[in-house]
């Protein structure tokens, strides 16, 4: 599909022209899958089609890893592959922008396709941890620059001009005299040029950029807006059956028996059977599979399913039990030390200091991707020695290449027996780093010897999530007579499974302000649980920022200080704690975003009663982000978030529109989560199941978001996650400013607030 460019200055006409072109392509697409004619043709969509469209002869260097990303057709159409999963973070647009920039392409000439899954060809194809941009920045620039040099070589040959006098621009090789040839004219010859040594490549200066830093509309926006986008759940292949899979509500329960005979007699049901799992929630848990002619048949049958579970060895996890245990530990130190520097005890005993202690609590939360977990798998049994088993799979996952691993470890298939397609992901937020729904689909397909689309119900999706771990922090701090932070202590109470901390359940020794303050002590206590946990947008940071930024605000207030001054002072002189390590706090960059957010939000301005500003900062995922929330609270504790002002330093911005989207989305997501989201569990079973008991923020409560980027000289880093953590403490600090009421527990609805 063609994409459109949307620049602030772009005229509507040019967009319309581009759109008309795109619509023509879209109509071809629809016709190809049988929808334009309104028939019932079933065709596979998405990556398979995309792959078929590409012509290997047009690959600039078809036999090399280098430039597996770029193809140029003689008609000038430039195809750029995006290799990593798109889940809403925008890399399917941003990565090709980097390539197109170095290539010297005109963005209008570029078509972006999702690449096939081959890490040998495309490098690391994962997405997660806001790592894709920093990891691929140089790789994408090399891809573009390498192809650019090959075009220049081709242009030099044909125009008989010295290479040094040529450059690329607007999809042409251009000479200073004005002579030029288009990429299309040179494509065939360019493909035959020597591939430059990667070490010899040079990259553009940023003042030469024509694409990077502009606002580009997402490359899939046309197909999304017309219903033609292909998410995993939209996969349709010939002779496909539909499946549901029912697991024990109590984590780890085993199937003793089920009313399979009755289920098999239900309308549209083809088969129902017990699947014996291997006990690993990341791979395959026990359950009952129902296979039928359509989704409604298997979902209806699932509701009638009666399973007798053996929960002898299943989980007995209890949220209320964890809360009670954690509260009993408030004020103590944990058994395991994280950091011990200076002497906090002396500062706490010093009667000139003001000392505070507090207990903070945050719940488990679910990912709640709008697209529930699903997978389409076609396991084909081989007929003998020369006809091996094969698997074709449409895998909505953040790690498509890892499908080869489970195909091998769980099903004994070699990589060449497996074809993996990479659909668009309807949200992920860390959820789809796990692959158990893929394993379930493969297992079910294998059992019925047919292609099967497994779709989880929303209830399955919430109950069987890999949750953001809840936890607790018992904090203590001291400010001196001048209101300066002199001691900080944290007892982190987190979650572990089988002796290993679950994702994000950590308090790092480098956590602000441990390195900044003279006297610091941190320790931890870990509670052993079975409830599966996993990464959830800005793991660790999304809870710790709430605790640390709230408690520092408490200390500032106790010391009679303005929080902006207090925070800047606590940050200390400009320094990079681990020089050269982008995962390490740079206090200069931190202070710059803190001051910018405060200034732009009108920090210090006079506000009416019941209205306040709250400031918070978080360094996470290599990003320095500060946010100021302006919040009103009425007499019934109903809050209104009027505006959130955000200052971000992630280095240069690739796609301005995409970057702004990530910040806006993170603010809304953060507010949604802090207001009313909470997963609880008792006796090993999750108690929430759908949107009626697990709320999402609605449009009317979406605050105005004003974002400012400091485009510093550092390499660009990712923005899918780091704008989320500062939101919660910015809001709760604003609530304190407005009312004097301190929030130490999430979600806010548990504390009587509403929005």
């Amino acid at each position, binding site marked *: 599909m063609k994409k459109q460019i949307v620049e602030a200055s772009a005229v509507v006409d040019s967009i319309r022209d581009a759109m008309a072109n795109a619509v023509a392509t879209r*109509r071809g697409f629809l016709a190809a899958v049988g929808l334009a004619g309104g028939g019932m043709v079933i065709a596979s969509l998405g990556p398979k089609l995309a792959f078929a469209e590409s012509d290997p002869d047009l690959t600039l260097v078809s036999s090399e890893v280098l430039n597996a990303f770029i193809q140029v057709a003689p008609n000038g159409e430039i195809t750029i592959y995006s290799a990593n999963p798109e889940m809403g973070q925008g890399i399917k647009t941003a990565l090709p922008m980097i390539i197109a920039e170095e290539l010297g392409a005109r963005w209008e000439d570029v078509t972006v396709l999702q690449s096939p899954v081959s890490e040998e060809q495309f490098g690391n194809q994962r997405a997660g941890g806001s790592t894709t941009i920093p990891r691929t920045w140089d790789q994408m620039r090399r891809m573009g620059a390498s192809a650019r040099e090959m075009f220049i070589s081709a242009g030099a040959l044909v125009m008989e001009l010295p290479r040094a006098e040529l450059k690329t621009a607007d999809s042409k090789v251009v000479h200073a005299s004005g002579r030029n040839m288009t990429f299309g004219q040179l494509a065939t010859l360019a493909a035959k040029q020597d591939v430059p040594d990667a070490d010899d490549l040079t990259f553009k200066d940023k003042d030469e950029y024509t694409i990077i830093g502009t606002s580009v509309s997402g490359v899939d926006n046309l197909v999304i*807006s017309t219903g033609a986008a292909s998410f995993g759940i939209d996969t349709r292949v010939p002779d496909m059956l539909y499946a549901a899979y029912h697991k024990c509500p109590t984590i780890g329960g085993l199937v003793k028996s089920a009313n399979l005979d009755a289920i098999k007699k239900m*309308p549209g049901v083809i088969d129902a059977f017990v699947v014996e799992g291997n006990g690993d929630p990341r791979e395959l848990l026990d359950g009952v599979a129902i296979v039928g002619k359509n989704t409604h048949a298997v979902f209806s049958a699932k509701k009638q399913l009666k399973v007798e579970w053996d929960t002898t060895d299943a989980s007995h996890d209890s949220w209320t039990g964890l809360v009670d245990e954690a509260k009993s530990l408030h004020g103590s130190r944990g058994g395991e030390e994280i950091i011990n520097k200076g002497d906090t005890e002396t500062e706490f005993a010093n009667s000139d200091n003001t000392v505070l202690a507090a207990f903070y609590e945050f719940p488990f939360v679910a990912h709640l991707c709008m*697209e529930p977990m699903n997978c389409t798998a076609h396991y084909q049994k081989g007929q003998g020695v020369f006809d091996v088993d094969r698997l074709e799979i449409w895998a909505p996952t953040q790690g498509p290449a890892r499908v080869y691993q489970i195909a091998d470890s769980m099903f004994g298939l070699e990589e060449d027996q497996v074809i993996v397609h990479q659909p668009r992901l309807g949200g992920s937020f860390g959820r789809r780093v796990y692959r158990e729904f893929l394993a379930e689909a493969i297992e079910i397909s294998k059992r019925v010897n047919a292609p099967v689309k497994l779709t989880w119900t929303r209830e399955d999706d919430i109950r069987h999530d890999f949750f953001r771990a809840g936890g607790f922090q018992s904090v203590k701090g001291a400010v001196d007579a001048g209101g300066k932070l002199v001691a900080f202590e944290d007892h982190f109470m987190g979650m572990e499974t089988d002796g290993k901390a679950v994702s994000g359940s950590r308090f790092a020794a480098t956590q602000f302000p441990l390195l900044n303050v003279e006297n610091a002590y941190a320790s931890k206590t870990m509670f052993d649980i079975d409830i599966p946990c996993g990464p959830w947008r800005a793991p660790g940071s999304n809870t710790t920022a709430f605790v640390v930024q709230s408690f520092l605000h408490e200390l500032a207030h106790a010391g009679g200080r303005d929080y902006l001054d207090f925070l800047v002072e606590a940050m200390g002189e400009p320094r990079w704690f681990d020089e050269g390590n982008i995962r390490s706090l740079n206090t200069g960059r931190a202070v710059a975003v803190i001051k910018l957010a405060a200034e732009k939000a009108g920090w210090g301005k006079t506000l009416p009663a019941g209205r306040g500003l709250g400031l918070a900062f978080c360094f996470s995922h290599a990003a320095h982000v500060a946010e100021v929330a302006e919040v009103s609270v009425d007499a019934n504790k109903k809050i209104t978030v009027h505006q959130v002002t955000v200052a971000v330093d992630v280095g240069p911005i690739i796609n301005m529109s995409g970057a702004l989207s990530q910040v806006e989305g993170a603010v809304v997501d953060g507010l949604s989560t802090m207001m009313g989201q909470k997963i609880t569990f008792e006796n090993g079973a999750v108690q929430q199941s759908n*949107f009626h008991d697990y709320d999402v923020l609605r449009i*009317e409560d979406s605050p105005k978001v004003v974002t400012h980027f400091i485009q510093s000289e550092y390499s660009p880093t990712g923005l899918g996650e780091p704008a989320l953590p500062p939101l919660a403490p910015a809001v709760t600090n604003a609530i304190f400013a407005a009312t004097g009421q301190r929030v130490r527990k999430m979600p806010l609805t548990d504390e009587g607030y509403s929005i």
Partner: protein
Amino acid sequence: MTQFSLTVNGERYQIDVEADTPLLWVLRDELGFVGTKYGCGIAQCGACTVHLDGVAVRSCVIPISALEAQTVVTIEGLADGANLHPLQEQWIKQDVPQCGYCQAGQIMSAASLLAHNKNPSDAEIDQAMAGNYCRCGTYNRIRSAIHGAAEQMNAAFYDATSKSQASV
């Protein structure tokens, strides 16, 4: 199984399904209109929004047997041939989608609003769109794109009116 007939995006279809099959699954599984999405199955999230005689409804809770002569329009049928609906144009122009999964439902709710209210206020937009969740948080751009589409439609209307007056 019972035979039903249904008009979707201007075409008449005969389908054999169970009478309690929700419209959502008829569209997705039987007819292949997969632009309409499953999100919750309990009319809470709006991902499955389609038009029934021009009104936005949640197709996940409407059994096929409850439909009589109504016509259904899905996201695939919103554009007028090659001409995108102004909402679709604005969705692209203002780069609304993030993951994109909820957006078909959002656009269908917004199209129903604009069909009945040519110039909705923020509050009217918020009210009409309250049943459509966006987990990625694209709400502000959705609101802005609806305003943009309203302006575009009104400008086109006045343009057409003035031209017809000029010709008279």
